[in-house]
């Protein structure tokens, strides 16, 4: 009977919980598949190069920082214009596909592979380029 009660409670709540579930971070297994999938998509040259981020620092300009210390009304107005200009200018974003580091076990696997590989196949970058070229060739042949 206890099982039935618990089952009933879960049934009653199933949809509600799923509708609100929100703040999950990708789990290790998902992160692993993410890094693998990104590596494959890059090998196919369909996305930018994947790069892991070490740290991100918000950018604050000198003009914006000085906004709080303007002493005269004219200075304040000038700084205010600077701020509006600063926050209106188009920005540049990297072509890298920046991502968080892979899960520890995946990072370890990659490192282990690198350490144990034969010297001739040690440069992953060269291998990737070869794969890309092959893919491109096949696509060119198809399009002809």
């Amino acid at each position, binding site marked *: 009977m206890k099982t039935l009660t618990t089952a009933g*409670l879960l049934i009653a709540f199933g949809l509600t919980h799923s509708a609100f579930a929100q703040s999950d971070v990708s789990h290790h297994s998902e992160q692993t598949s*993410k890094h693998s999938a990104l590596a494959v998509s890059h090998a196919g040259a369909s996305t930018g190069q994947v790069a892991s981020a070490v740290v991100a620092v918000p950018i604050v300009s000198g003009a914006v920082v000085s906004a709080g210390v303007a002493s005269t009304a004219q200075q304040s107005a000038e700084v205010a214009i600077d701020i509006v200009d600063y926050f209106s200018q188009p920005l540049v974003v*990297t072509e890298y596909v920046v991502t968080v580091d892979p899960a520890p076990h995946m990072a370890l696997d990659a490192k282990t592979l690198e350490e144990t590989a034969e010297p001739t196949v040690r440069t992953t970058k060269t291998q990737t380029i070869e794969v890309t070229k092959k893919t491109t060739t096949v696509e060119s042949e198809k399009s002809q």
Partner: protein
Amino acid sequence: MNIFHKVLAAAVLVLLAGTTNTVLAGSQTTAEPQYSATQIVRFAKGIERQLAQDGARAVIIARAGRPANELPKGISFTHTAVAIYSQITLQNGEMAYGYAIHNLYQSPNNRGRSFLMTDYPVDFFWGAVDLRAGIIIPSVVMQKRIIDLVSTSDHRKLHNTKYSVLANPYNNMYQNCTEFTLDIVNAAVYETTNQARLKRNAQQYFSAQKVNESRMKLSMGSMVMKDLTLRDHKRTVRTATFGSLAAYMQQYGLAKQVYIVNSDLTLSQL
């Protein structure tokens, strides 16, 4: 098979269906991406370029963990965070420029707890079930203040590790990702991390989204789910959502632009 077994079997079947449905919600731990890596990268990069073109340096960003037609009335997105244009040091030593996203995430090992984590657009949208994004570009003054708050790590003072999926934004008993974002916005407005003051002002000015589910159903859920409690609520259950946050920021002139980015990167109104 007697009647009890029949009922139990039926219950288990429905339970399995319910569990499957739950697993598909948000970027659940076991969820497979609903889109290819190429689609996600294109979408994430497209959003970055859109924000960069707008000159946005601090943005409120939201993703949908479920298809729009399956979300309760009044709720369009399931996860909200703050994205800030940043200088990113890559593992290869290069410097790159793009958006870093400052999230409150539910702990995968203890669903009643949360932690703060910085990730990037591709990570953010990786488990999205519906490739849409909600965007609030704050006013210039608000962007500057949000950047100041995050660059000094003062936003961390606003974090409450006790997580509830329907946290009441009017008190500090529990917190979810959207309430954390609301707290960041209000900390920027009032230039304080004093929780009592922030919650007083939220009560006064912020209209949280009423949750359109029966109190009994929610109460039953809270008996079995670690990440749901009604202890922080009075009679009506209200929580912070991307939509209610956007409405609040527009009402008080804190937002410059609010829009949705669709899967084909076209823009539409919230």
